[in-house]
């Protein structure tokens, strides 16, 4: 499908922009009925829909292990987690609709391949330990991001983040529990979890997005409180939180340059391979193709179901109206 031409952004009334920025500066929350600059609306629509898509696509790599989870308790936790992610997706799609877009159009953009979702979900889940690492690292990184987004200026998004973060914390705890269990398990389990950490570590750091030097919109986003911290600040916070957690269970990182810097109290890490990141973003990650194919298949296979539900609802609405 041809991508729709993006309509030019209309110039906003400078007086309205000034009033809007004053509200932001005063720490007020912006609500759906409030006036907002068109660039703000578009930026939030993009962020929120990408977030919703990420929740939905994120169901796939984890869903891959539901049928093989090695104990009934783990199986139940994983089903519940994937169910939560579906709930997050639904909740954020609904939040995005408050900006005047339609969920079905957003889903269509995902299926067309014109919308983005978190690059992390384009990596494969190869062993059970990957389920531990995703909960620990991916949900952990999401929490670092979302804790800050919970203070973002757009009310519906901020409130969604507060609610979702509670569940992401639970996912992270479960993930870390899996990791710790494997790290204290048999030699084969220990090797499995170290291998998973080796594969998931760098992609997790990439989840925070490119370095601020390469994020041209950062200044405006920070001013409008769409973002609250730079990508690099959040990434550093995540690393500082995560390194001691790995050390506590005797796991190591695939980064020879990782070292503690007493002056800044930061764990300094090596150079991120941004070529890999941009390749994955452009669609050339290991599983981009499979993820989109799975979403399209679910959508196509579900068409007759959605049509049936609509036809049934229409018939019964007609019957109810006739009866009245």
């Amino acid at each position, binding site marked *: 499908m041809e991508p729709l031409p993006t309509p030019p952004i209309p110039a906003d009334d400078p007086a309205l922009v000034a009033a809007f920025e004053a509200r932001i500066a005063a720490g007020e929350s912006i609500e759906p009925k409030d006036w907002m600059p068109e660039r703000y609306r578009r930026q939030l629509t993009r962020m929120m829909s990408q977030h919703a898509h990420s929740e939905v696509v994120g169901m796939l790599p984890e869903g891959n292990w539901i049928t*093989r989870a090695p104990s*009934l308790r783990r199986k139940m936790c994983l089903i519940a987690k994937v169910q939560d992610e579906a709930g997050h997706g639904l909740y954020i799609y609904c939040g995005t609709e408050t900006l005047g877009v339609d969920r079905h159009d957003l889903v269509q953009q995902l299926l067309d391949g014109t919308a983005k979702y978190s690059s992390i979900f384009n990596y494969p889940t190869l062993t059970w330990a990957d389920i531990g690492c995703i909960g620990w690292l991916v949900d952990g990184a999401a929490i670092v991001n979302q804790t800050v987004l919970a203070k973002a200026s757009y009310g519906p998004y901020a409130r969604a983040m507060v609610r979702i973060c509670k569940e992401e914390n639970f996912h992270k705890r479960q993930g870390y529990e899996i990791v710790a269990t*494997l790290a204290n398990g048999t030699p084969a389990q220990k090797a499995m979890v170290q291998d998973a950490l080796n594969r998931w570590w760098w992609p997790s750091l990439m989840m925070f997005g490119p370095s601020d030097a390469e994020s041209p919109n950062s200044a405006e986003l920070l001013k409008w409180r769409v973002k609250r911290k730079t990508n690099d600040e959040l990434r550093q916070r995540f690393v500082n939180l995560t390194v001691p957690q790995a050390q506590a269970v005797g796991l190591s990182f695939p980064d020879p340059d990782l070292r503690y810097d007493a002056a800044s109290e930061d764990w300094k890490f090596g150079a991120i391979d941004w070529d890999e990141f941009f390749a994955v973003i452009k669609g050339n990650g290991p599983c981009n193709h499979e993820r989109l194919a799975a979403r399209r298949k679910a959508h196509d296979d579900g068409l007759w179901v959605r049509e049936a539900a609509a036809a049934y609802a229409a018939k019964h609405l007609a019957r109810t109206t006739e009866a009245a």
Partner: protein
Amino acid sequence: MSVPPVAGARETPVANPLFEYLLRLGDDRLVLGHRMSEWCGHGPILEEDIAMANIALDLVGQGSSLLQLAGVTEGAGRDEDALAYFRGEPEFRNAQLVELPKGDFAFTMVRQFLFDAYSVLQLDALQKSTFAPLAGLASKALKEDSYHLRHSSDWVLRLGDGTAESHARAQAALDELWRFTGELFESDAVDEAVRDNGIVVDQAAIQSRWQQVVADVTRRATLTLPPAGASASGGRRGRHTEFLGHMLAEMQIVARSHPGAKW
């Protein structure tokens, strides 16, 4: 691996009928929950992904509790995971209905409906059992399965009375599944023996009430009930379809690759 007893008159007496009975209850729910969980992330609409995950979660949870109770009853040190992950196919006691591959959404929902309608009647009888641990589990599960039944009945109505395509798919599913329903209502020496444990389930009475519920919903869904015919059987004695082995191979692979490991 023990060889399952042969059906019918040559049936060998079951050593521990209560254990056997609990396996039947637990395996039905574990296997059906597993099949439902295969939809996770692939549902026709996001709302349905949530609902199907919820149903899968409830069923696996019920299966887990029932197998745990079975393990305690057996007294051989097997917990729910030992029973779920380290029994072979002939040792599973679920009805064949629940092990069939998930098929399309119509197959999944019609099967779910046929099972739910049975399960709520069975659980209602079980919650009155004087075997307290089972009565407690049944009463909790009944609340969950009553919701499942509402959900699956609603879908049978929508699919049956939706479009020509959905009607055809729902009817095909019903036709295909029908011969697997009789096994749910079989009764044998195990059902007889657990009366001594205070578990009294009148299978014939459940069957006739089930037929009423199924007739009512399918009629409103404009579906046609298939004629009574030959019935599949054997699951309760460990004789399964070709499908269960594949399902268990997948379900058990990690656990069996690491014997003795903790997860």
